[in-house]
């Protein structure tokens, strides 16, 4: 199955975080904010013109730029 990223998901789609492809510092920061492998992420909304996306993970809501979301590799939820 082809790997895909958090940024490629449509609104309302869920996926499980697999890995973050970024340098240590960025990886660490994202993990600390709740983007951890094994957690399920839901795309709540996307803004227009390539703006940020809103992602829900467990009890928190995050906004992130698509370029950052593109570093997060996900797999379909079971």
């Amino acid at each position, binding site marked *: 199955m082809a790997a895909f990223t958090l940024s490629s998901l449509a609104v309302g789609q869920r996926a499980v975080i697999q890995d973050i492809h*970024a340098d*240590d*510092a*960025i990886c*660490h*920061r*994202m*993990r*600390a*904010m*709740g*983007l*951890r492998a094994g957690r399920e992420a839901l795309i709540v*909304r996307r*803004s*227009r*013109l*390539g*703006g*940020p996306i*809103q992602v829900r*993970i*467990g*009890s*928190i*809501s*995050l*906004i*992130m*730029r698509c370029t*950052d979301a593109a*570093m997060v590799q996900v797999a379909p939820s079971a």
Partner: protein
Amino acid sequence: MKRVTLVGMPNTGKSTFFNRLTGASSRVGNWPGVTVDLLTSKTILGAVAVEVVDLPGIYDLHGFSDDEHVVRSFLENNPVDVVCVVLNATQIDHQLGLALQLRRADVNMVVLLNMADEARQLGIDIDIDMLERELACPITLLSARSGLGFDLARQMLARALEQQAAQTSPLLRAALPNDDGIAKQAEQLLARAVNMPLVLERRATERLDKVLLHPVLGLPLFFVAMFVVFQAIYTLGTPLQDGVAWLLDYVREIALVPFKDVLAAPVYGLLVNGIFDGVGTVASFVPIIILFFFVMALVEDTGYLSRAAYLTDALMSRFGLDGRGFVMMLMGFGCNVPALMGTRVMRSRRLRLLTMLIIPFSLCSARLQVFVFLTTALFTPKQAPVVLFSLYVVSFVAALGTAVLLRGRLHSSEPFVLELPPYRLPTLRQVLLRGWHEVHHFLRRATKFIIVGVVLVWLLTHYPVGDPPGGPHSFAGMLGDFLEPLLSPIGIGAQMAVVLVFGFVAKEIVIGSLVAMTGLQGASLMHYLGQNMTWVQAFSFMLFVLLYTPCLSTVATLRSESRSLAFTSFSVLWAFGLAWLVSLVFYQGARLLGY
């Protein structure tokens, strides 16, 4: 004295608890990481005097961000009796890891599960006894906003203080096990001690977001909100500023003018025209800063600032900025000073510095006064609005152009990931405390700098011959002559050059200095200007006034907020350079075209 530190993630209500515990005016924001300086306050817990230190909000003790370094090095280098960990109970699934990390560091700790009332409403059930056993420390539920459970939390801290001597935690980072281990442990503990509903119902927040973050309506609503905020600040602020001015005048008449004949003229001049008027300049900012931060506290504490960042980020990311920078830039159109102070919400230093470089280009209300006067003097009523509008355009272009030119040097490597907190109603107490705290901060840090600057300009314009102030035989007049070769290519004569020297203190005194130098007022001054300047010269002058250093208060704020003299100097020089270049291109261009 014993020492307690507060540690927790951003957005946990840590600062609210700090306020409640110490009664001090700390800043509180419904926004990740607003606490910048280490706020410290003294209080009595049990029977002992305690120093309470509020550390910056961090996500992780192990990380690499500036704040994480601050917290680690604080704990490594300062003896601490009790580490008070504040966790947001509504997000306990994300936050337990931080407590586990501190447990591994073997500190004497107390855990407060804040926002307990909200957690209960959301159906989150936490087994406190089991958590206490597993974390081997006292834990209690708390609502720092409402004060529920606060007395218990105090008692718990007092008991923990009796336990052992203060300790530092050397080599904190090395002592921590790898993150995966902590994450696994946190998950196991959560599974046993916490019962969380699968879907958290935040219906009110979701409903509001549907409207406020709407793909089409969101942005217009944001601009409406900004407009209302702006109007509110300035409709309330202007009368307050007038009130302060009236009060100062009154004090001057009652307490200072009677000494005019008693004191030697230079002493009186220095005291009244120098220092007292300098203090007056500072004081005139106070109402605007208070109001600005009342409103900012509202916008932040409700959680809307993160939404504004979401809405404007698509545009701002192209300029190397983020959405919060845009909000601050808009605020700068009222007054640059509080807008610069407001950039503290940005956690990345580079991003913050870049934003602080562009804010001084925002056409503030003081500059607007100058422009309205000059456009009325030199342009027809039909032309005037177009001229004013073009100045606003130049303001935006200068700000965004600066960002584009310098974003490479101040590139932020931090990912743009922000928490979107649920909407909350701010409490009046927090909003008031915040306004007071900011004013205190501004006065403490800027007053000396501003008074020195004002006195300097007073000396320049009054010596060796100060009649009229800033006349050709004063130092300022000589400076004007000296600068002539530099300013004549942009169409500014010696007299207007002196006005620029005055304008360095504050744009509010530009017109006043013209009055003092020419002895003319109102319509006759306008007539005089119309006679002595062409419209090309006037527009060139306005471009210069728009772009060069806004005022001493802005410079003082740049310095105190950046804590870097080099950065402040760069900002001032950059603004001067850009002002000169833009005026030169305009003036020479217009002359080439035959105007």
